[in-house]
């Protein structure tokens, strides 16, 4: 099968709606197809990868740890928009530590989160071949 550039665009907060969870399910499946996969987190989508999520009070499953598994599936390009963080009073320190292991570099852990500004996010979006939004 040919390889295409797939982008999954995440613009919505988790738990308030199901999109974050079901988007993540597609991302995991996409790994099996060996495509060139990127994830974009902008607008309220940045809340999907905050650290310290605790869902005990709302009766929903906490699925945030699944993002940590993405690196194991060779999904290692998670673009996060700076301006979206700033508007929400967040900094990169508020995000989970998401990494992948580089087999060409003695399995060194490398960060999966790529902090970009709005113009850079626009550039990344413009390069994609298939853009799925939820």
């Amino acid at each position, binding site marked *: 099968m040919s390889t295409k550039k797939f982008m999954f665009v995440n613009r919505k907060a988790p738990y*308030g*709606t199901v999109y974050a969870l079901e988007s993540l399910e597609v991302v995991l499946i996409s790994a099996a197809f060996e495509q060139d996969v990127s994830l974009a987190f902008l607008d309220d989508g940045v809340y999907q990868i905050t650290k310290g999520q605790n869902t005990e009070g709302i*009766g*929903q499953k906490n699925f945030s740890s699944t993002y940590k598994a993405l690196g194991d599936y060779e999904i290692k390009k998670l673009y996060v928009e700076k301006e979206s963080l700033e508007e929400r009073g967040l900094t990169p320190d508020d995000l989970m530590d998401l990494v992948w292991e580089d087999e060409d570099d003695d399995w060194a852990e490398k960060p999966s989160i790529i902090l970009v500004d709005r113009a850079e996010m626009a550039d990344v979006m413009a390069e994609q071949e298939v853009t799925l939004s939820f």
Partner: protein
Amino acid sequence: MKFTIMINEGPYQHQSSDSALQFARAVLAQGHEIFRVFFYHDGVYNGTRLSVPPADDRQLQKEWSELAIEHNLDLVLCIAAAQRRGIMDADEAKRQGLDADNIIEGFRISGLGQLIEGGIQSDRTIVFGD
């Protein structure tokens, strides 16, 4: 105090059914009364018995059903909204010539007047939606 609760969205897609369920439990825990829970718009999807979510996830339709049975709650699905969206009880399915129904125990199907009556009869009417 007497409460009526309206729910405008189906389970999972939006948090409103989760929120309403937790709210309803808290209302009962504090000794208040729930006059009625009225499911409107996509809210009628809360009344299906055919849902089988993953084992580690909540099953909202069943939780509503069990809460209704335990506390003898009046859970009403709007008939017009239910017909549009394919939520049927046995009588309605038969009347429409359908070969199956899918309502879960603890819910009943009725008209929009039940919502207005809830508003009139209750001290508080709380809406959960998108």
